[in-house]
């Protein structure tokens, strides 16, 4: 036997459990009400019969029979019982057929079975009291407690009317809720399966309402967006690699083929092989650089982060490039007096600054100047590299930070065309700002806001 799907959901089970607990509570509550009411009514009946018995007992024996008759006549609802019996138990007056055997004489009011009707044909359970009077006769006063049964009926009826529909309603609500939840889960399942199958454009359904399920769906959608972007980036990197490796690899292939056909001496063949190895090395360097840029752009490699004083870093870059500049007859000036420290990865920052200085020296003609400075603007440390080279034309400033971009003017200068993309990736990782300003010459800046 299998339950319908919705009945197996957690939502439905919880609904059932809550409805059950609620029903139990109502039953207990009603039972308490019934019990307290019964107690109250019984106590009241007892008080009434006791008072009545005392009244009759106080009357003279002559008046007593009349009073009892009158008392019974004035009870249209037929809830009162009274009887006066001789000491032997014979009835003198009243609507009771016989002296009830279970009734304790001169005791408190108690429950008793009375025989009433012609010839004692009927019995009824009442609250009754019996008292022996001064002349030896026995007085019995009873009061019907049907009201208690009526109340029980009312309470039971109310329970039936109120509780059953409420139970049905909660089961229905539980079923509905779980069916709805299950529908959403099934929809999510379906989309998830499509995503697994490779359709990364799929998103989980949202309803635009502020419920936890929607929030979760939105978070997952955010994740999916990021994953999709990453996949695109990766395939982009792949495309870049494929595109930019074809050229050097084709060259190597042609060169090797020609060398094989035409080289006349071992020396000639060696020269061909050497050139080919150099080209292959260059291709490998391109792959490494591209992967590195992708790694920096997409990883949150923050484990190497620490407080980095900028001035020593700049001086060290200057120290490293000083002989290179000198060889090229370019003046390299380092002006780093600021005490600024930034939160960052020292190796990456070094690499970025070194790249900028490397570029500046490379593009500055003999006799020119390269300035590496640490300045402060709007209370932010700014690393500035300025040179007297040809600069970067306005319309090419954005493009230079893209992979492989190389200005026409720089063709013929060694390099992979990846330097500035690498700098841009490093700067972005740190949350810094990279800008290439118009100038005479080239002026690039890395502004380092100190975030906390």
């Amino acid at each position, binding site marked *: 036997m299998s339950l319908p799907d919705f009945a197996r959901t957690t939502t439905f089970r919880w609904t059932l459990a809550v409805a059950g607990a609620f029903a139990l509570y109502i039953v207990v509550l009603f039972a308490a009400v019934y019990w307290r009411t019964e107690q109250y009514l019984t106590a009241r009946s007892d008080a009434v019969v006791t008072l009545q018995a005392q009244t009759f007992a106080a009357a003279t024996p002559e008046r007593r029979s009349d009073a009892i008759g009158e008392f019974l006549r004035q009870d249209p609802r037929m809830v009162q019982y009274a009887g006066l019996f001789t000491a032997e138990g014979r009835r003198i007056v009243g609507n009771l057929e016989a002296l009830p055997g279970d009734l304790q004489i001169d005791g408190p009011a108690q429950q008793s079975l009375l025989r009433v009707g012609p010839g004692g044909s009927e019995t009824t359970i009442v609250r009754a009291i019996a008292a022996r009077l001064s002349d030896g006769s026995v007085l019995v006063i009873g009061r019907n407690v049907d009201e208690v049964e009526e109340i029980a009926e009312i309470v039971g009826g109310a329970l039936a009317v109120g509780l059953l529909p409420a139970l049905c309603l909660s089961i229905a609500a539980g079923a509905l809720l779980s069916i709805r939840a299950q529908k959403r889960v099934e929809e999510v399942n379906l989309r998830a399966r499509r995503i697994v199958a490779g359709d990364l454009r799929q998103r989980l359904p949202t309803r635009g309402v502020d419920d936890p399920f929607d929030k979760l769906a939105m978070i997952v959608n955010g994740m999916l967006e990021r994953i999709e972007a990453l996949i695109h980036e990766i395939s982009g990197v792949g495309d870049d690699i494929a595109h930019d490796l074809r050229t050097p690899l084709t060259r190597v292939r042609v060169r090797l083929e020609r060398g094989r056909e035409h080289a006349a001496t071992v020396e000639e063949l060696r020269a061909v092989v050497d050139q080919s190895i150099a080209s292959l090395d260059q291709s*490998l*360097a391109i792959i*490494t650089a591209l*992967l*590195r840029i992708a*790694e920096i752009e997409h990883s949150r*490699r923050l*484990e*190497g982060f620490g407080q980095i004083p900028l001035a020593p870093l700049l001086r060290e870059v200057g*120290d*490293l*490039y000083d*002989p*290179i500049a000198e*060889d090229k007859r370019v003046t390299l000036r380092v002006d780093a007096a600021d005490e600024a420290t930034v939160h960052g990865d020292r*190796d990456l920052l*070094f*690499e970025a600054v*070194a*790249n900028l200085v*490397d570029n500046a*020296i*490379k593009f500055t003609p003999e006799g020119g100047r390269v300035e590496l400075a640490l300045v402060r603007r709007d209370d932010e440390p700014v690393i500035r590299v300025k040179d007297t080279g040809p600069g970067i034309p306005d319309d090419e400033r954005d493009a230079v930070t893209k992979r492989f971009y190389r200005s026409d003017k720089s063709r013929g200068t*060694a*390099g*992979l065309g990846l*330097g500035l993309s690498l700098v841009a990736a490093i700067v972005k990782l740190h949350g810094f700002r990279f800008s290439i300003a118009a100038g005479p010459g080239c002026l690039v800046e890395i502004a380092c806001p100190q975030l906390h």
Partner: protein
Amino acid sequence: MARLLLIEDDKETADEIRAELGERGFDVDWAANGIEGLDKARSGEAEAIIVDRLLPGMDGLTIVEALRHAGVRTPVLVLSALGAVDDRVRGLRAGGDDYLTKPFATVELIARIEALLRRPAESRDTMLRVGPLELDLIERTAKRGERTIDLLPREFRLLEYMMRRKEQMLTRAMLLEEVWKYKFVPQTNLVDVHMGRLRRKVDEPDEPPMIHNARGVGFILRVPA
């Protein structure tokens, strides 16, 4: 003749490396997988171990960690196609002594193995001597014979590194990593320029040269004949 252990799953690569190293006079034992490699490495016969990181079902670093854990101190060169800076750091942290990214030039591999085999002992000497060359680590002065050499701090650092590894091939990448602690490959030929400076100061035109450019891949400091 130094015994080496090569743990590399690709037979073709392994054969190439063994042939190259064999020609240089190394006796190379080969293990094609991690388990075998670990067993051979534990025997302690090899003087240096070359481990590929991407072994079938195992990261080569696991072997290095296991060896170090077992107290085996044999120097290890980790080979990897994973070239990111973090990978290198992880490789060294796992107990590797050097890390080389595939593909590599054979000379680079050999230079690094030789460096591992001849790791300079931690000496407390305050004076280094190679032939006529003298380096005073306290006074920070350098002399060749009677001639005082005036060195910039960066040149001093470079010469100290070379003197501690005399007669040893030091490739550009090794110098960058060890002397300058730079973990990236600069576009400009930085090492050559710096070495050129140092060389002009160490080897004057009338003196027999000590700093030699070797096969276009690195530099060797030699005692003049």
